[in-house]
């Protein structure tokens, strides 16, 4: 255990020194959603972009925001609500500005419901986002989808607060 921690520290610390926003990316979603909201879809507000005038920093922040912002769903639904659509519009804008970037859309479910059904539902969720982005003018060939069903929860809790966080599409730049 101790060895593991040392190893983790060795891996994590240099990463932190390089990009301050990297750590925020991981922590932010939990912090932002810890309020008592229940079934509603939600959007995690991105960390404020680091105050820096360099264009490179801004680009990095936009990239971080793209990957940090998840799209959330209601229980047993792959329908994109208004909030989800507005987040996806931002993502479409980023993708059109960064034409070299290809992405993977990861569909996820909460722990309720059976394994196979959630695999199918997770794929539907990823497909919903892909279809929306395609309609916004992003080439479908740039977007792969994968379902993790209920296998990769961000919050291991057994309550609606945790479930709401886990019913999500996560976006990864390849």
């Amino acid at each position, binding site marked *: 255990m101790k060895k593991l921690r040392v190893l983790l520290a060795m891996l994590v610390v240099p990463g932190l020194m390089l990009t301050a926003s990297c750590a925020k990316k991981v922590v932010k979603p939990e912090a932002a959603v810890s309020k008592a909201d229940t079934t509603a879809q939600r959007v995690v507000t991105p960390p404020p972009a680091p105050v820096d005038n360099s264009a490179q920093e801004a680009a990095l922040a936009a990239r971080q925001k793209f990957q940090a912002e998840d799209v959330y769903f209601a229980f*047993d639904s792959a329908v994109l609500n208004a909030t989800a659509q507005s987040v996806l519009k931002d993502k479409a804008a980023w993708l059109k500005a960064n034409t070299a970037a290809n992405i993977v859309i990861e569909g996820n479910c909460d722990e*309720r419901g059976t394994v*196979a059904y959630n*695999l199918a539902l997770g*794929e539907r969720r990823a497909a919903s986002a892909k279809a929306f982005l395609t309609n916004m003018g992003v080439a479908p060939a740039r977007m792969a989808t*994968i379902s993790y*069903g209920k*296998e990769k929860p961000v919050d291991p809790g057994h309550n609606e607060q945790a479930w709401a966080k886990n019913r999500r599409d996560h976006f990864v730049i390849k």
Partner: protein
Amino acid sequence: MPALLHISIFFIVSMWYGFACAAGQYDYVDINNPSLKKVPIAIPFFKPVTGSASESEISRNGANMLSDALAFTSYFNILDRGAFLADAQKADPASPLFKAWTTVGAELLVTGAAAVNGNQLELDLRLFDTFNERQLLGRKYTGNVSDLRSMILRFCNEIMGLLTGSTGLFGSKIAFISSGSGSKEVYICDFDGHNAVQITRNRSINLTPALSSDGKWVAYTSYAKGKPELFIENVMDKRVTVVDKKGMGISPGWLPGKFELGATLTFSGDPEIYLLTGNGKIINRLTNSPGIDISPAFSPDGKRMAFVSRRGGTPQVYIQDMNSGSATRITFHGNNNTQPEWSPKGDKIVYTTLEKGGFFNICVIGADGQGLVQLTHAQGDNESPTWSPDGSLIAFSSTREGGSRIYVMTVYGADQRKLVSMPGTQSEPRWSPGVTN
């Protein structure tokens, strides 16, 4: 599959001692009676033929194994050996003193005699009706000393065949998922949770294992190659066929008695159920409706398929005729009904329902949509029901003690108990399907 290997070493030396009678002719055990009275049975330690230490040990272990196996069925009340009047280890196993057994309440009696010569074991097992004072069954098994459990289980299968008309429980296997190694891997264990063997070791995520009727093949979904794909693995030699199509391959279900299976593939952009050969080649497409169609489960005669579809707006269980292709919805209670599995008789479907209170529970419904019964209540989430091939038991997963574990119960929901004790969580049990002869 040690049990299968050992069959060849066994010689049934003597067949019927008593009356020849058709399986199920005796109505000692009516498995269709929900308020079943457990049959009192006496299983004294076997007789060590020469009295050697190894014979004595086998006589005790064998009787205990037989007691545990029969108790597992929930049909028997295994009588306490402390109350026995007769010393079966000294008596002639072929002619018990019936009065001594009826006096202690036994309606059935099993006697045994164990003779050990080197590594060779000769085991003589008999079943008696103590009230009618007659032998119902007699078998002699020979083999290696290490084959004791296989011999006992084969005799138990004979007992159940005689008393209930249904065989196949004691030789059956259950595939399941355990996270004990740190990742979700496929395991296979005996009907009673014994002898769990790890099948996959890819340290990825492996899900929804399904055993073929002969227990030789296990199909499952694995992320081992990055995305969720359908893997079909030979349990013996570990050969794996990956159905490497675009999209996912999920929720496999074997056709009873055949080297064919159904599974959902999403390469068309829509999750549809396909019929595949055991080698992973598509035979034909079975569903054609937009939205989720998953979890094919075939009737024992292979003529009908139960599956889950969202075509009506919520996930519900449908039954499709394999010839005509027409599908009928059979679940109307609740908004989330999944994981259908056929009873081996083909008359009922067990499935998982989401109750209004937010918990998942196990229900049974007639294949005609009539006679809905809920089997689990108010004990965490209960999922993944699977019927034993003899039709007497249902295994399932439950979070009643915290993390997911595998439990077993009678088909009426009685005698719910934990099946395996292993590190990590266990889920998605799937019994090898029964075959209609």
